[in-house]
């Protein structure tokens, strides 16, 4: 029993986090928006050069042969900066999905070696993110996995409140030709897990921004952060994050078990992270006062990402149903914390 990251894991996450915090500031986000580009090419190149995209692909397929526990800190860091590029869904969901296929039609190699991207939609999701820049889409028809390439679909942009979420309705038809496998469960779990990790990062960012503002903004002759009313709002939000993060980390470590218990953990992680991020974002708006609901203050970039990810890869209601099912199917009790003992 060792519920801690290794030195290596911490070092990789730290390096990725520093790079993202340096290159993806709110100023960078606003510049990207002004340019109207789908992504920041220099930053995306750095992400690729660091090998982050191939972390969850096996070494014999050109990846780093790492696992969910290695990547979870990077997803958290991507959330912390509200990264516009599709790192989390590409590296966290599409790449391991492709790597698990008998025949991926060469797409894993194109992603790892040629800089191609593959977009992936959660089963039942009404739209696909980042489909316009993707060379191929991974889509669900029931439990079947379909891969379609640019001549096989038509896209219609659906504007998200989050200006960096590039959402598209996809007009496509599943066929024997497009089917490349079946079994979405593990991929949907990765999607939920890493969305949860992003939400933890987003929540922490909202609190950090609110703390910085509360130290700076004076009313009644003192920084508003010196007043208990403000302190307690922020402390309450921080507590929720502190008790979402370990659930997300446990969900990452247990994902491979693929059981009722491990899937309930992922759902718990998604619910807890979404609620923590939601509270942090709303608290940050309150602490910023009227400035909090303006376009001028950067907070809304993070709040809108929270709004989106809260429902991505399974709504809270759907995940709650899985937790309820786990409680009904498996015994509960103090000796049954970990999925490994169920």
């Amino acid at each position, binding site marked *: 029993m060792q*519920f801690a990251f290794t030195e290596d894991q911490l070092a990789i996450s730290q390096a990725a986090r520093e790079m993202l915090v340096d290159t993806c500031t709110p100023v960078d986000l606003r510049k990207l928006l002004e340019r109207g580009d789908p992504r920041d090419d220099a930053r995306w190149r750095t992400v690729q050069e660091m090998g982050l995209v191939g972390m969850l692909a096996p070494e014999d397929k050109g990846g780093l042969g790492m696992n969910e526990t290695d990547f979870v800190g990077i997803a958290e860091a991507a959330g912390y900066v509200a990264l516009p590029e599709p790192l989390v869904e590409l590296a966290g969901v599409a790449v391991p999905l492709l790597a698990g296929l008998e025949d991926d039609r060469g797409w894993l190699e194109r992603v790892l070696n040629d800089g191609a991207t593959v977009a992936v939609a959660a089963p039942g999701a009404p739209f696909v993110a980042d489909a316009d820049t993707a060379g191929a889409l991974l889509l669900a028809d029931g439990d079947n996995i379909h891969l379609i390439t640019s001549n096989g679909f038509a896209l219609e942009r659906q504007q998200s409140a989050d200006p960096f979420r590039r959402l598209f309705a996809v007009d496509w038809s599943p066929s024997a030709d497009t089917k490349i496998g079946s079994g979405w469960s593990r991929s949907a779990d990765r999607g939920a897990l890493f969305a949860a990790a992003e939400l933890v990062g987003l929540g922490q960012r909202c609190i950090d921004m609110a703390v910085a503002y509360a130290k700076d903004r004076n009313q009644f002759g003192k920084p508003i952060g010196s007043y208990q009313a403000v302190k307690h709002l922020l402390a309450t939000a921080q507590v929720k994050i502190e008790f979402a993060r370990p659930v997300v980390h446990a969900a990452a470590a247990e994902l491979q078990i693929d059981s009722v218990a491990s899937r309930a953990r992922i759902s718990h992680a998604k619910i807890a992270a979404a609620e923590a991020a939601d509270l942090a974002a709303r608290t940050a708006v309150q602490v910023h006062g009227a400035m909090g609901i303006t376009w001028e203050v950067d907070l809304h970039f993070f709040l809108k990402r929270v709004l989106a990810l809260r429902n991505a890869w399974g709504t809270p209601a759907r995940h709650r149903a899985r937790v309820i099912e786990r409680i009904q199917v498996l015994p509960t009790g103090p000796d049954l914390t*970990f999925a490994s003992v169920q």
Partner: protein
Amino acid sequence: MKLDYNDQQRAFRAEVRAWMEANVPSGPLPSFDLTREGFEAHREWERKLNDGRWGMVTWPEELGGRGLDLIRWLIFEEEYYRANAPVRVNQNGIFLLGPTMMEFGTDEQKARFLPRMAAGDDIWAQAWSEPGAGSDLAGVRSTATRDGEHYILNGQKIWSSRATFADWAFGLFREPGSERHRGMSLVLFRLDAPGVSVRPIERMDGEKVFAEIFLDNVRVPVADRLGEEGQGWHVCMATAGFERGLLLRSPARYQEAVRKLVALYDANKDILPASFAERVAQSWMDADAYALAIYAMASRLVAGGTIGPEASTNKIFWSELDIGLAQTAMDILGERAELMPSASMAADIGEWLQYYIFALAGPIYAGSNEIQRNIIAERMLGLPRA
């Protein structure tokens, strides 16, 4: 990261489980807060635990422990709560004063107090709060006046759990004339010493869970001071760290309560709206989240880390999850929630009313949640002091 137990940890769990199955009393013991008999029955249980070397498994072997790490302690606690073993009457001693004494005590003090504490020979109460010093603990006014090799203690303490029947107390006293955080010392005193009088305080349900302690020229040897003279605040903050951090409330307590909540829900679900399933699930998630956070904290400590201000997040989380859990149970019981255990229609309800009333105290004791939020805001988030 490895979220599985190794063979030794599994064998340890099996050993604890077998001992508990053979030794835990079949029914609940009489309350330790109502009668001397109930208190002594719990003392006997402490002796039995100690005889099996189960009193405090993390303590060194020479003090009756097993020298085990915190992961084993968590496993022990899981089996303890799973077996519905009696509440630890000496928790102020073994979980709070014991670790403090190991850090700050002299060898003579450790030898004199810790084995007796482990054996249940001395049951301890905490004597920190005063009528005028609750959340503002630095406002303590009780005094310890140096008189050669003795202190003369005077003043009044309050909200001392178990003090009605306990043997000893550890209290915070100040040098006359000193102010705030300076000049305080942590002094150990017998509750039957001349000049000490104890007045039980009834909780709203009639249990005498805590007491007031009056000290009138109580003579205590200087050798019964824990830590340096004048360093009492520093010593107490270390104790408070243990209290909020992980020793006071092990996650198993809440996970076992959730197991009972699930059973209560299952027995009543035909007449409950579907929303109750979500509330029960929320309590299950909260208890598991607390368990995971504590396993992570224990792993960090085992690897040589320390507990910082995040201990305050623990205290807020467990006290609030406990109220949510208790409230859900009360709402499942519906009209019968108000029934005292003695009512014939309450035969199958269990102890939820008592659980609920005790849960209400959670956000107050061990440092109110308002104080914890100040600590989080100032020491974790770096917000300015008022």
